[in-house]
């Protein structure tokens, strides 16, 4: 019983460590992105907040998803993260058109290419998550069948 508990604690610590590493990598990407966009941060207005919310949400989803690895919830959170990325960007960027008003200057940038690329990557992510979930359930049922057989 004690040995089982030790394994479980070790396993959870490893998961937290892995989740922390992945979240940290996302945080580093966010920091680099913030550093690169620092000169134009003032012009970004509300879009600065949108980017912050995106990074924070992806970071949280990644952490939770990694923490729940080895369970079906891992795939649920991964699926949710990919879906969030697609819906969030389509909604907040009006389908890819980025508009700003600075006193008497109006700016409009069409970022449809980036949105499409992001959607495509997320779709691949969804496909991978679904296949992984199927694979996970398949392996789990196989193990149970083998256990029942012996």
């Amino acid at each position, binding site marked *: 019983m004690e040995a089982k508990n030790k394994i479980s604690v070790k396993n959870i610590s490893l998961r937290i460590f892995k989740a922390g590493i992945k979240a940290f990598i996302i945080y580093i*990407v966010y920091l*680099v*992105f913030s550093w*690169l*966009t620092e*000169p*134009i941060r003032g012009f970004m207005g509300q879009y600065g907040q949108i980017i912050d919310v995106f990074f924070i949400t992806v970071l949280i989803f990644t952490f939770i998803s990694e923490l729940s690895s080895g369970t079906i919830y891992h795939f649920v959170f991964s699926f949710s993260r990919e879906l969030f990325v697609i819906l969030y960007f389509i909604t907040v960027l009006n389908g890819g058109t980025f508009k700003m008003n600075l006193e*008497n*200057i*109006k*700016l*409009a*940038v*069409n*970022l449809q*290419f*980036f949105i499409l*690329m*992001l959607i*495509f*990557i997320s779709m*691949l*992510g969804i*496909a*991978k998550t679904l*296949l*992984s979930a*199927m*694979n996970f359930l*398949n392996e789990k049922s196989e193990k149970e069948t083998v256990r029942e057989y012996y």
Partner: protein
Amino acid sequence: MKYTLKALKWAIIILWICFIFLIFTTVYSVANIRVETNETKFFTKNNEVIVAIPFILINDGLYEILNLNVTTIVVSRENEPLTKSTSFIDVIPRGKETMIWHNISLSIQKMVSNQKYLFEDSNFTLLNNIRLDFARIIPFAMSVNSTMPWGAPLYNFTVSEPTFQMINATTSTVSFNISFENHSPYINLEGELELKIFNENEELLGVTYETIRVPSNSFYKKTLSVYIETTKVTNSGYINITFKTSMLNFGPLVIPYGSEE
């Protein structure tokens, strides 16, 4: 299943790397584009005032700029479009400097057809639209509003009441003062002023031609005298003033004088 998952995993990793690389290089390239402007030049050509704005676009980014289109619409205070000027550059390669002369032309003859712009100072609005395709994948548009002052070439145009002086039984002289300020920074009035004096029966009393030279931002005041036939003089009438200058022809401007009683 495992091979499919591995393939998908690597495809996603590669696509994320490409995506992040594209974002970083795009942001870096945009941050390395500089626009410098030199002194705006004003000149006239074929009866048009041309405002030439030089831009130097320094593209030190990693991507080229395509289909750069700069359009300026000059709009009057009453929101009436006066002129539209467009400059187009098809490619600005990376690591190159490109000089663009954006010329805004205003037809003087068209401007003076509206008397308001001859006699009253005004402010025009310049609606500047800039469109370009960055790195072939990012269309960008910017619009900036600015103002352009319009100085009236005949500001405060005044003709004094004429004074008649009889020389003999058949000939008299009529004298009057003409004054105005040329507020226009673009128009130099050099040419001839034609004055025709009519009596109340619309009979021509006399004609005179006066050479004028009124550079921009200067004042003109002169007393003009015209020989007329004494017998035709009536209590009232009108003076027709016509400007025939190298840059604008305008007239006749009808100035009534005297009282009809």
